[in-house]
C-alpha cells in the first residue's frame, strides 16, 4: 500500500492504495465518483474514460501510481445537474442515451475532441468516438449532441 496524491476535478485527493490498482477502482471506490464506469477492464469499451492531462484515457488500464500529478477530469468535473457543461446540456437536449452506462465515455471523448477541434465534421466525430462501444444503439443521437454542442445545425 502507498500514499498516493491525485488531482481530480481541481481537487487534491490523497488515497491509500496498492500503486498497481487501476485508477478506475480508486476513483469509484475511494473517491466515490460515479462517472467512470467498469465495462470491461480491458481498455476495449471506453465506459471508464477520464480526461488525463487533456487526453481521453481508459482508467481501467492506468495504474493509479501513473496518474499521480496528472490533471484528471471525470464526468463530475464537467458540470453538475444544476450547472451542466454545454456538452451535457446538448446530450440532454438530444436525449442522447438509453441506459447511458457508456455515456460517460462518449461525453468525455467528445470534450477532448471539441477542445482540439471546435467544429468537427460528422466523420471526425465518428472517428473520435469509434473506440467507444454503445449497446443500446444511441450513436446517432450522440453524433447530433456533439454537433449541437459545437454549435452546428442539427437535423433530427
Amino acid at each position, binding site marked *: *500500500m502507498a500514499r498516493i496524491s491525485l488531482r481530480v476535478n481541481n481537487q487534491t485527493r490523497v488515497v491509500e*492504495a*496498492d500503486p498497481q*490498482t*487501476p485508477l478506475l*477502482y480508486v476513483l*469509484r*471506490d*475511494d473517491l*466515490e*465518483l*460515479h*462517472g467512470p*464506469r*467498469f*465495462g*470491461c*477492464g*480491458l481498455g*476495449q*469499451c471506453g*465506459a471508464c474514460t477520464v480526461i488525463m492531462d487533456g487526453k481521453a484515457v481508459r482508467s481501467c488500464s492506468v495504474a493509479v501510481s501513473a496518474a499521480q500529478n496528472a490533471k484528471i477530469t*471525470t*464526468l*463530475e468535473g*464537467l*458540470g*453538475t*445537474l444544476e450547472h*451542466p457543461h454545454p456538452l*451535457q446540456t446538448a*446530450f*440532454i437536449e438530444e*436525449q442522447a*442515451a*438509453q*441506459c*447511458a*452506462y*457508456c*455515456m*460517460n465515455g462518449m*461525453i468525455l471523448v467528445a470534450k477532448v475532441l471539441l477542445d482540439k477541434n471546435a467544429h468537427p465534421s460528422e466523420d471526425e*466525430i*465518428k*472517428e473520435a*468516438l*469509434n*473506440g*467507444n*462501444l*454503445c*449497446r*443500446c*444503439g*444511441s*450513436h*446517432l*443521437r450522440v*453524433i447530433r449532441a456533439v454537433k449541437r454542442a459545437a454549435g452546428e445545425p442539427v437535423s433530427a
Partner: protein
Amino acid sequence: MDSNMKMTTDANMEAKTEANMTAKTISRRQVLKGTGALVVAFNLFDPLSHVMAQVAPGALNDEPQAGALDSWIAIGRDGKVTVFTSKVDLGTGIETALSQIVAEELDVPFKAIKMEVGDTTKTVDQGVTAGSRTIERAGPQLRQAAAATRQQLLKMASAKLAVPIEQLTVTDGVVSVMGNGKKVSYGSLVAGRPFNVQIPATGVGWDLKVAPDAHVKSPNDYKIVGTSVPRVDLPTKFTASFVYTQDVRVPGMLHGRVVRPATVNSKPASVDEESVKDIPGIVKIVREGSFVGVVAQTEWAAIQAAKALKVTWTTPETKLPANSDAVYDYLLKTKSFAQRPVVNRGNADAAISQAVKSYEATFRWPFQMHGMMAPSCAVADVQGNKATVYAPSQGPFDTRKRVATLLGVPEDKVQVIYREAAGCYGRLGTDDAAEDAVVMSRAVGKPVRVQWMREDEHGWEPKGPAQLLTVRAAVDASGNVVAWDFLDRSFPWTESGGQPLIASRQVGIKGEGQGALNGTGGGGDTYTFENQRIVAAAIPWVKPDPTPLRTSPLRAPGDLARVFASESFMDELAAAANADPLAFRLQYAVKNQRAVDCLNAVGKLANWQARPAPAPAASGNIAKGRGIAVSARSTTVVAATAEVEVDRSNGEVTVKKVAVAHDCGLIINPDGLKNQIEGNVIQGTSRALMEEVKFDASGIHSLDWASYPILRYEKIPSVDIVLIDRKDMPALGGGEPSIGPIPAAIANAIFDATGARLREAPFTPERVLAAMRSATTSTRA
C-alpha cells in the same frame, strides 16, 4: 477501508439513504408508519417523506395488495404524487412513459410524479419487465389506478366543497367548482391521510386487471400522453449523479468476485488458498457446494485473488457441441419437446405435394449475446434469516423468490430493491449476480458487492438460442403462392421462469423441466395464404444446462431469425415471380391492414421505386441494393427497408440507411419511441452483420469485445422513422418489435445488390463472398 465507506458528496445522498435502509430490512408498512430511526433516513429522500406524512399507522399490510388504492398511488400534502410500480426502467425510458400515463389520468403536472420502482416491499408484483409488455399491460394497470384515484379525490372534493361531482373540474391537481371560484388542491384534500379505499383487482402479473371500471379520459383529450416529454433520468445520468446498481455502496460492504469453472457441474477438487496469500485484504475464499468466490476488502484485491486463485476443477463431460455446424445438425435431428402452431390453415403438406412448383430453403441463426455494457452486478446483505438485495433484475419478485429458495427462508424475509444497470435486452430476467452476492454475503456475514468481470459476463451470460428454420412454399399455375409451411427449430430458454441460476445450482439446487419456447412471432404470420402452417418447435437442450451455452430471451426472442427466414423466403418468391418485393408483400398482407399501412408508409419514406430484385448489375466493386421486410411482434407492426453497399472484392457489407414504419397503437412518447427504434435498428444491424458466439467443445471463445465485436460508429446507418399513431387503439409495446425485420431487410438488400441469397447469419464477408460464388454457379429456381 472504513474511511472509504464514509459518504461525503451530495451525489451519494441516495446511496446513503440506501445504506440506512440496508441497516434494517424494512417493510412498506414500517415506512408508512414512519417509525424509529428510519424517519431520519427517509427525510433525506424527498418523495418518501411525502408518503410518510400521509399514511396512518397500520394502513397497509406488509405486502402491498393490488386491491388497495394506497398500494399504487400516494399524494403528499404538497401535491407530489408517488407511484409505486414493480415495472423497472431498463434504460428504455419506461419510467417517464408510465409517469406520463399517470399524470394524464390524474390531471396533475408531469413534474408532480415520482416513481417508486421495483422494491418488493413497496410494490405490487406486476410481472417481469420484458416482452415489450410494459406499456401494453402495466400501462393500463397504472392508468386505471390513477383514474380510480382521481374518482376518489373528486368524491372527497365533492364532500368538502358541498357540490355534486358533476360540477367539479380538475386542472394541475387542483379541483375547482365550475361557475364559481371555489377550489381545493389534491394535497390539501388528502391532508396526510391514506385513501383506505379498496379497488377491484383480479389476475396476477401481466394479466392483473386493476379498477377496470374506473372511468378514463378519451385519448382525444390527452395533453401529456402523446408528447415527447424528456426522460426524467437522463440529466442525472449525464452528470454522474445517477445511482446505478454498480454505484450502490452500503456501510461495511466488501467486494466479491466469482471463480467460474468450465461447467456448472464441475466440482472444485482442490482450492489452493496459499496461491493468493500474498494479496492483502482478502477476507475469505468462499466455498459452498461447487461455488467458489473471493471476498476482499477492496475491489482490486478481489479481482486479483479471483484471477490468481488456483482451483483444480473436476472436468465432467461438457456436452458443448464441437462447432456451429454440430449445433444446426443437432437442431435438425433432435425431436422437439414442445411445438406451438402459430397458424394452421388448410393443408400445407397436401398443397405443396400437389403443387405446380414448390420451393424450400433452410436458414441458420447462431447463438448471440445480450452483451450488456455493464457486467452483472448486485449487492447483498444477508443477516440471519433476512436478506436485502440491490439488483438490476427485470423481475425483482422473481429474484426475491430465487434468493429465498437459495437461503431456505420465506419470501417475505427477502427484500429486493431494484437499481438500474446497463441496458440488458432480456439478460437480467436471469439475475445471476444477486445469487452470487447472497452466497458470499452469507459466508462472511457482511454486505457484499459482486461484479462480474468481462470474461464472466461474455462467457456465462445466458445466450440468445441458436435456431434452424425451414420454409416451404407452393405456387399455382398463375404464379400465386398457395401454400406456406414454416418450421422454427430453436433451443428453449434454459434459464427462464423459476430455474435456479448458476450459484444456486452450484450449491445443489436442482432445476427442472426443459425450459420455455423461444417465442413464436414472425414466420410469415403477417400474410394470409390459402394453406398455411407456421410452427415454433423447442428442441431439448442439455437440461439443466451445465454449459456456458445456457440460454434466455434475447431482445425480440426468436423474431430476428424467424423474420430473417420468412422475409428472405418471401423475397425469393417475389424474385421467382419477377415481382417488386413491396408489391408482392402487399398482395399477401391484404388481410392485415396495419401491415399494409406500414409497408406503404415505409415505401413512401424510403422513396421505394417498384422493380424486381436483384437490381441491374452495375460496374465497379461497390454494388448497391435495397431490401424490405415486415413483421409483427405481439400486436405491434413494423416495416423496414435497408439500403446497403456490398464490396464485391471482399464481401464487406455496409448498411447505409434504414427506414422504419412503426405502428404500436397509441403512442405515449414519440421521441422515446424513436429512441427505441433507432437503437433497435443499430443493434439489429450489429446482430445481422457481425454477431456470433464462438465456441467449441472446450468452452466459449467469445470472451471480450475483440472476440465478440459489435457495430461501431464507423458503420452506423442513418435511420428514418415514420410513426403511425393510432388513437383508436390501446398503447402497445415499442421496446423490441422494430429489431425483428432489420436482418431480413439487410439480407434482402444484399440480394438486391448482388443476386446472392444469405441463408445464415451473421452476414460476414466470408459468407457474403460464398453466397455470391454460389449465386453465379447455381441455376436460379
